[in-house]
């Protein structure tokens, strides 16, 4: 055991003592100086098996420290004794001081007691002063508050709501929190909302009153505005009339500029008239409205008020749209439209001067509603109207409404569209009215020339329709070439033109002459022409009446030129443009019917005389030298006819009628030769007919002076048929008819069949004189041979 243990212990201390001890001591010193826990070091000492060393070191250390302590105690023993002595003396001094202090305190208490009383009084007084100051401040605040309240009440009493609201706001903002009195504060908290509500109700009531008032004002305002537009239009019309007169007289273009300048000036005046000036009937008051709006803005209720305003104005507008079913629209339409016009004049003002109370889009919204409603009402009312005058009245007022509101910037195209849409209906009604009037006028005609005793009658019946034949005023009494139908119908047509132009004027369409012309054409060609044709075909009794109608038609032809010129003038179209355009006569059918009627009656008359052709001696021994009886009668009649006709009929008409009559006479002659009533005739009879034709031609020549163009050949040409036939029969070479060239030149009116029939009837004189010697086989006449050839060839052709 001992032998093995010493070598291990020997090795460990030898190496560990030097380095390990140094390191441990260093660490331990650090730990001690750092006041660290020494536990780990102690445990390490014991686990390593070296406690003795540690104990040795500790004991050594302890003995060195005890030495030091003894040294210190020896050195300071004397100082300790001295300190104790000092403390003893100090104690006695303190006891002295204590007595002294007690005495001072007693004396001080004795002296200070009066001062303490004063101090208490002072503190109490200061508190009182502070409270009084607070009270004074509070009262001062209350005084200011009361002053503001008084002002607020005064403003309320004076209806100065804005100032009242300002006072209330000031009270709420500046005094409510400062007010010490809870009673006062509760009162204020209760009254302030009440005052605001009161102001709101009051202002709303004022606004309500304004709404009621503005409706009456709107109607008057609308009527006034439309009245001004009407007056402006009247002035414009007067200027146009003067301008037309000046143009007709002098054709000066300078005057137009002068009138235009004047019109522009007047328009400027008118434009500024409505609602702009503060005074007069034209002005209206937005004070209540602006005040209400301002108050609501101050109350913080701007949006609500704007909404309220818009809704109520919209309701008022909707109420304005009601059209009474008890009152005819014709009576109520002016009020209806004036109310709406006035409404929008007011809204325009509110838009411009209301400070944003209503927006442009909202006004346009209201206007769209109004236009839609007005168009609907107009459509409904127009669809039920059966009188043209009623449509015209409504149209005039609507166009004035349009002019009025366009001046305020409202678009009126939709309204004008409604008017245009009913243009056809209006004109149909006009045509219907005119049809009745014309039928009455035509039925009243006595087919007698009108007698005018005074100049104004001439002016009224002739000059006003420009149907005079001379620019010289005739002597009175004056017998007109026409009957009463002519001026009566002219008046009806002129009224139609004026009514048509009235409807088309100011209707938004600037160039309406073509429309007026179209309807005028319809009136003349459909209504008047038909009425006249009917009159001519049903009511004519005798040649004189037919002649009067033909004369009337000639006059009406001139009147038609006037009608279109008149329409152009009223439509604002220059006359030279109208005259440049050529136009067909609208009453052509009636004119043709009149001339046909006259021709027919004359032919019937002539037929009566032509029956005398039966008395012609077709196999006479010699030709009558002064014509047959029938032709002399006809010529006598025609001479009388012409002398009468030339008083009322224009030469052109008379010429056309005579052409017809002559052609008829020619046909009758040919017809007689062809008819079975004539079995045979000889050359002498044909020669007599030739004399008759020459007598007629001579009569025609005598009429040349009647025709302005001096064209008398047309009358001769009317006798061509009979003349060519007679020429053929008297010709020595009748077979020339077979030659196309000769036939076209000399016999172009002849019919093949008729030529055959008539030629076969021609008998030679030798047949009768030498009848008994037929058997002798005498040589044939060359003409006879030619005629036989013609007959044979024509038969073959047929």
């Amino acid at each position, binding site marked *: 055991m001992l032998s093995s243990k010493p070598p291990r212990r020997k090795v460990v201390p030898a190496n560990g003592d030097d380095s390990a001890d140094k390191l441990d001591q260093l660490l331990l010193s650090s730990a001690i100086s750092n006041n660290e826990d020494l536990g780990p070091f102690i445990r390490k000492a014991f686990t390593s098996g070296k406690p003795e060393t540690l104990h040795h070191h500790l004991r050594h250390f302890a003995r060195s420290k005890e030495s030091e302590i003894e040294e210190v105690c020896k050195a300071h023993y004397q100082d300790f004794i001295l300190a104790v002595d000092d403390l003893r003396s100090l104690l006695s001094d303190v006891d002295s001081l204590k007595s002294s202090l007690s005495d001072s305190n007693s004396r001080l208490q004795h002296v200070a007691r009066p001062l303490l009383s004063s101090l208490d009084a002072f503190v109490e007084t200061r508190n009182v002063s502070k409270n009084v100051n607070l009270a004074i401040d509070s009262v001062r605040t209350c005084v200011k508050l009361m002053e503001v309240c008084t002002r607020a009440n005064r403003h309320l009493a004076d209806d100065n709501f804005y100032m009242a609201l300002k006072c209330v706001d000031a009270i709420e903002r500046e005094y409510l929190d400062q007010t010490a009195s809870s009673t006062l504060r509760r009162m204020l908290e209760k009254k302030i909302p009440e005052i605001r509500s009161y102001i709101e109700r009051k202002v709303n009531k004022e606004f*309500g009153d304004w709404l*009621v008032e503005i409706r009456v004002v709107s109607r008057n305002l609308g009527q006034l505005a439309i009245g001004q537009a009407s007056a402006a239009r009247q002035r414009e019309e007067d200027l146009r009339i003067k301008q037309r007169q000046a143009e007709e007289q002098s054709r000066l273009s300078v005057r137009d500029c002068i009138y235009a300048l004047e019109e522009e000036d007047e328009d400027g005046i008118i434009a500024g008239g409505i609602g702009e000036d503060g005074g007069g009937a034209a002005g209206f008051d937005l004070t209540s409205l602006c005040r209400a709006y301002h108050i609501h803005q101050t109350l913080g209720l701007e949006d609500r008020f704007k909404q309220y305003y818009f809704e109520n104005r919209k309701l008022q507008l909707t*109420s304005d749209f*009601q*059209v*009474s*079913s008890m009152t005819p629209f014709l009576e109520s339409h002016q009020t209806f439209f004036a109310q709406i016009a006035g409404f929008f004049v007011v809204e325009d003002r509110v838009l411009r001067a209301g400070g944003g109370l209503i927006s442009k889009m909202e006004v346009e919204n209201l206007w769209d509603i109004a236009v839609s409603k007005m168009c609907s009402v107009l459509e409904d009312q127009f669809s039920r109207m059966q009188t043209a005058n009623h449509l015209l009245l409504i149209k005039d007022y609507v166009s004035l409404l349009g002019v009025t509101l366009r001046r305020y910037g409202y678009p009126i195209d939709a309204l004008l569209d409604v008017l245009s849409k009913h243009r056809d209906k209006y004109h149909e009604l006009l045509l219907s009215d005119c049809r009745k009037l014309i039928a009455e006028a035509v039925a009243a005609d006595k087919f007698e020339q009108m007698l005018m005793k005074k100049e104004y009658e001439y002016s009224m019946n002739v000059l006003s329709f420009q149907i005079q034949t001379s620019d010289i005023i005739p002597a009175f009494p004056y017998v007109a070439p026409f009957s009463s139908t002519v001026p009566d119908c002219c008046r009806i047509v002129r009224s139609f033109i004026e009514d048509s132009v009235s409807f088309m004027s100011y209707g938004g369409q600037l160039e309406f002459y073509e429309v007026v012309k179209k309807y005028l054409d319809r009136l003349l060609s459909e209504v008047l022409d038909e009425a006249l044709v009917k009159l001519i075909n049903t009511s004519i009794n005798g040649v004189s009446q037919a002649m009067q109608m033909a004369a009337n038609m000639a006059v009406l032809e001139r009147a038609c030129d006037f009608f279109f010129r008149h329409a152009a003038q009223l439509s604002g179209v220059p006359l030279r443009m109208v005259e440049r355009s050529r136009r067909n006569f609208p009453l052509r059918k009636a004119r043709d019917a009149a001339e046909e009627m006259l021709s027919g009656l004359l032919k019937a008359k002539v037929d009566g005389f032509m029956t005398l052709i039966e008395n012609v001696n077709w196999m006479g021994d010699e030709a009558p030298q002064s014509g047959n009886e029938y032709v002399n009668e006809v010529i006598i009649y025609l001479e009388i006819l012409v002398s009468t006709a030339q008083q009322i009929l224009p030469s052109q008409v008379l010429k056309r009628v005579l052409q017809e009559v002559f052609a008829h006479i020619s046909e009758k002659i040919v017809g007689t030769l062809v008819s079975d009533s004539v079995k045979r005739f000889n050359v002498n009879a044909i020669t007599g007919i030739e004399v008759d034709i020459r007598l007629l031609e001579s009569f025609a020549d005598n009429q040349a002076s009647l025709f302005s163009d001096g064209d008398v050949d047309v009358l001769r040409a009317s006798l061509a048929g009979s003349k060519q036939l007679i020429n053929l029969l008297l010709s020595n070479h009748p077979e020339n008819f077979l030659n196309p060239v000769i036939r076209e030149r000399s016999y172009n009116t002849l019919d093949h069949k008729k030529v055959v029939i008539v030629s076969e009837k021609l008998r030679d004189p030798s047949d009768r004189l030498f009848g008994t010697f037929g058997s002798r086989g005498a040589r044939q006449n060359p003409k006879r041979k030619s005629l036989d050839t013609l007959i044979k060839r024509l038969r073959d052709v047929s």
Partner: protein
Amino acid sequence: MAFKVDHEYDYLFKVVLIGDSGVGKSNILSRFTRNEFCLESKSTIGVEFATRTLQVEGKTVKAQIWDTAGQERYRAITSAYYRGAVGALLVYDITKRQTFDNVQRWLRELRDHADSNIVIMMAGNKSDLNHLRAVSTEDAQSLAEREGLSFLETSALEAYNVDKAFQTILFDIYHIISKKALAAQEATSSTGLPQGTTINVSNMAGNAGGNRSCCSN
């Protein structure tokens, strides 16, 4: 000892409300009988009636107010509606011209179906909407004078003139009844004792019975 009365009233008057749909008849009724106004505009279906008792010259009058729809499709009840009515309140809306224009038609119907002695008052309702007025007071006054009607403008919303309208009708009815009662009383003077008068105007031939006058002691 005091006797308990048989009825709470001396007279029962039937009054009908007529006029176009939407003029406010039902609200006039509810304002008068229940002091209520309903902003929702519901159309009346069929017939409704309500009562209210009030004093007319010392007499207790019970007003039985009949309200009906203005639409055409409820006209089947017309005769029954008007039977026994002694008063009519003809209502139009001052903001709708058409309702005023139709007053003539309602009058014609009233005179066709109701008793000829019926008391008629014309009422222009919704007078609170003065800013939307479409029928002027003058126009209505002229029509009333022409047709022999009483006329008032009312507002069921503001309770303006509603009570007055009914009181006027009941007052006029009472006076007509009184005159007829007086005539009947003179005719039956031989009986000595005054008799109560029946409400039915068309049966004034002295049909005793029904409601009696109130007697105490």
